[in-house]
């Protein structure tokens, strides 16, 4: 599939293993763990219809974790000459010797079996500065032709990760990611439209469509008028849904739940595993081998990351257990989700709009911050295309809103789910943790106040 014979960015498996062996050969601690991250990041940035900056960075970072008994410390360095590596090993060991004991430390893992995942797409890894500039210029041309103003970002990452321990564990993963996002504004600053794609494979990034969609949104949002804040039926386009849902990545922690400081804590003690908490059409999984959303099949500690079902038909099915907490609770360890994959339905976005009597269509969100972890509530704002829907049709563009919304309630209030797609869920436009979600129609979404921002 994604493999070619061309040289990949980042250290190869052999190079990684050799580097790990060299460092382990220098080690004198009871145990040692090595993590290597290597590769390139390339970017092209546009604003006011020009390329403002572009660049490429290559780096290799090595983390050396040394352990004496239950004393643990780590040193990160990007200096790989023999003397620097030896110094880093000695530093890590010196720190570990004087670090207070960590009573929760468990011995390093021995050899593990990982699911086979190759997330490296040559189309992304081989992308040149010129190709990025050509793709970026499509947005500029689209804006120029309408006398509008474009600002965009193409972010490319290609490289590898490796983990090794003095107990003979070795893991290697190689992958790519790319995100292309574009904002087009009117020169008077009174309208703004956004579109973007994210994937592991550059060949799936539709630069022409991104330019067309951003321009279309910007045109359609002109002449926005006021709408009272309140509770509305809303349609969250996939990017808006993904930006909210990605906040769920950190909530499936068993220890937080068992210790009474999570939405999944049970009053009186314990957690809410097995309870039906959400609409029965809500199923959330994570899977390192998910096509176009691949991730490493191991954690930094070398723990295997498997396909997991976190929510099955609305029922809380799994929580993540660190090795320590798993041992304490007498269950098997389970790594945190490395990506977020939510099931959907068959409805198209048009079908969903047609089904709304009075509601609001939301393109994307901004500045999302936690409010109350007890109910997984967040605040944030709508941005770059917000529309009133009346009687199954877009009625008019409306002002932006601040929302205050519990995600627990949102997942219980889902009415229609569309077809899932990978989205650019990171507000910064960086190619980040893969998030695949459907567009969502949700009732009782709280649009708390009006924002004048455009």
């Amino acid at each position, binding site marked *: 599939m994604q493999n070619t014979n061309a040289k990949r960015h980042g250290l190869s498996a052999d190079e990684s293993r050799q580097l790990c062996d060299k460092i382990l050969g220098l080690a004198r601690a009871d145990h040692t763990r090595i993590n290597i991250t290597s590769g390139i990041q390339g970017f092209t940035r546009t604003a006011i219809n020009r390329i403002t900056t572009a660049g490429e960075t290559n780096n290799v970072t090595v983390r050396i974790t040394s352990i004496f008994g239950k004393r643990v410390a780590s040193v*990160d360095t990007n200096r790989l000459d023999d003397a620097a590596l030896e110094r880093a090993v000695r530093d890590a060991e010196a*720190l570990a010797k004087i670090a207070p004991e960590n009573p929760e430390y468990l011995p390093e893992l021995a050899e593990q079996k990982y699911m086979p995942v190759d997330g490296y797409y040559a189309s992304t890894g081989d992308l040149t500065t010129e190709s990025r500039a050509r793709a970026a210029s499509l947005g500029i041309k689209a804006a120029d032709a309408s006398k509008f103003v474009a600002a965009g970002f193409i972010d490319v990452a290609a490289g590898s990760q490796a983990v090794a321990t003095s107990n003979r564990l070795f893991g290697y993963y190689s992958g790519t990611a790319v995100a292309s996002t574009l904002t087009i504004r009117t020169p008077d600053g009174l309208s703004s439209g956004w579109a973007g794609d994210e994937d592991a494979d550059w060949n799936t990034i539709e630069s022409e469509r991104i330019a067309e969609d951003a321009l279309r949104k910007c045109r359609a949002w002109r002449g926005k008028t006021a709408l009272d804040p309140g509770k509305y039926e809303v349609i969250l386009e996939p990017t808006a849904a993904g930006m909210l849902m990605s906040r769920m990545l950190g909530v499936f922690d068993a220890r937080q739940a068992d210790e009474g*400081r999570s939405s999944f804590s049970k009053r009186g003690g314990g957690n809410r595993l097995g309870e039906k908490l959400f609409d029965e059409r809500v199923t959330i999984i994570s899977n390192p081998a998910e096509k176009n959303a691949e991730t490493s099949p191991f954690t930094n500690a070398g723990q295997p990351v498997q396909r997991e079902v976190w929510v099955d038909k609305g029922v809380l099915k799994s929580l993540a257990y660190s090795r320590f907490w798993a041992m304490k609770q007498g269950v098997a360890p389970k790594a945190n989700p490395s990506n977020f994959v939510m099931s959907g339905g068959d409805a198209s976005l048009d079908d969903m709009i047609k089904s709304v009597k009075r509601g609001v269509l939301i393109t994307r969100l901004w*500045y999302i*911050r936690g*409010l109350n972890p*007890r109910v997984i509530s967040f605040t944030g704002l709508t941005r770059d295309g917000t529309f009133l829907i009346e009687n199954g049709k877009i009625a008019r563009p409306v002002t932006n809103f601040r929302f*205050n919304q519990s995600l627990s309630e949102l997942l219980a209030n889902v009415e229609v789910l569309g077809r899932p797609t990978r989205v650019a869920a990171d507000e910064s436009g960086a190619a980040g943790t893969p998030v695949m979600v459907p567009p969502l129609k949700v009732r009782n979404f709280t649009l708390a106040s009006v924002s004048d921002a455009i």
Partner: protein
Amino acid sequence: MQTKLDRREFIKLAGAAGVAAARPFQQTTAPGPDAAEKDLVMLALDAARSAGASYADVRITRGNTELVATRERQITNVSKNETYGIGIRALVGGSWGFAATRDLARNSVAAAARQAAAIARSNDRINPVKTTLASVQKFPDGRWMTPHEVDPFTIPIEQKAQLLFKTNEEALRVKGVRFVTSSISSIRESRLLGTTEGSLIQQTFFRIGPNVNVTAVSDDNGDFQTRNAVLAPRGAGWEYVLGLQMQENVLRWAEEAAAKLTATPVQPGLWDLVLHPSHLWLTIHESIGHPTELDRAMGYEANFAGTSFLSPPEKVLNKFRYGPAFMNIVGNRTESGGCSTCGWDDEGVPAQSWLIVDKGVFVNYQTTREMASWISNLTKVRESLGTAYGQDWASIPFPRMPNVSLQPNTQDVSEEDVIAATKHGIYIEGDGSYSIDQQRYNFQFGGQVFWEIKDGKRIRMLRDVAYQARTPNFWNSLALAGGKSTYRLGAALNDGKGQPQQLNAVSHGCPIALFRNVNVINTG
């Protein structure tokens, strides 16, 4: 950084640091450039010039961080990080290109410089507008170091851990408190900047970021509340941590976490707000610091951080009323202890201080060399105000926020005076949840601790408080600012901006202040 190898040597060093603490810091002791690094900078500048760059700047940075983190009675993280490399920014025909590498072999450095020029040339083929740079004085031997008494890297890990454990232990004495996390981040950064215009500047930065977070849980696991101590990071040495008296103060933070479990939920509506500096700094950051960045106002950040309501410049400069006539806001890269304080910015422009809001009126933005000419006909300032910054060697320099601070009342107004001037209000300490729109109008801020004020007295604790406001309305509701004795610095080490996103460390000073009739919501 020279990390020592055993406990005895650590202690020896700490002793030496103790002696150093007795001597006041002298800027004249700031180190100059390493000879090998200087050679590489010159090599890269030559290579960029030979590849056609009309201007280039080269930065070699070595960033060292050390983290000691605990929870309750155990260590959770002891780590050190070093990142070292070179970044070259080249201007060819009026367009920028950037390349960076960790490989400091001479041929790799020269190749990276040529790559930066090649990327710039590629961009220039399709760029209609050309970048020009404001003039700057040449500094062929610039040297600067963060004023500090004790290098935090000389304090043994054990000493840091013991301080954190003792702090945690104190907190756990309070009924209802079940969890405490605490940590100390120490940061040292060496930056060598060279430009094709002849500047060579070596700077060494120290920053330190302590943190304590206390969680209380109700007996039935039905509720939990946290109290973050909101200990501001500081451009300083270990002496700053000692001055915080974490062990002594944590009892109050822990009691407040427990008290929040049974505090009265706030009644939504209009309230006067008395905002402590540990809270107000973040409101300043979001609603004044960001909208006065000129690159935002001109559309350079439209795809991520957003634009600004302070635009276009000709309609707002010297015209827009931000707040009352006693409101003065200063951009200041010389603020003592500021996280953004420096000797020069990343374009070799000297650190300076300037008015952003003068007697309530918006009078200037934050600029770099590329941006100075865009507004010089309005501000009469032809040179850069010195806000260029790249997070590290791998990051291209671009406009980043200086320390932006609200000046205190010229009268000696105390915290008690401000509370006494409040009839129906909420006193807010510490920053909490924060969110603001992409043009910096609509914001919503929470906090850590909330006290109801009635008829000039704090009467009881409230919970689940956040306020929502529109920036111009909020600042024009500023009714009273405290005097110099109430002035404090708040700060963040992780202010994000740019694509790829870069982090910036920045401080904001302010006195305690009273705002009238602000919309308060209940987040419970």
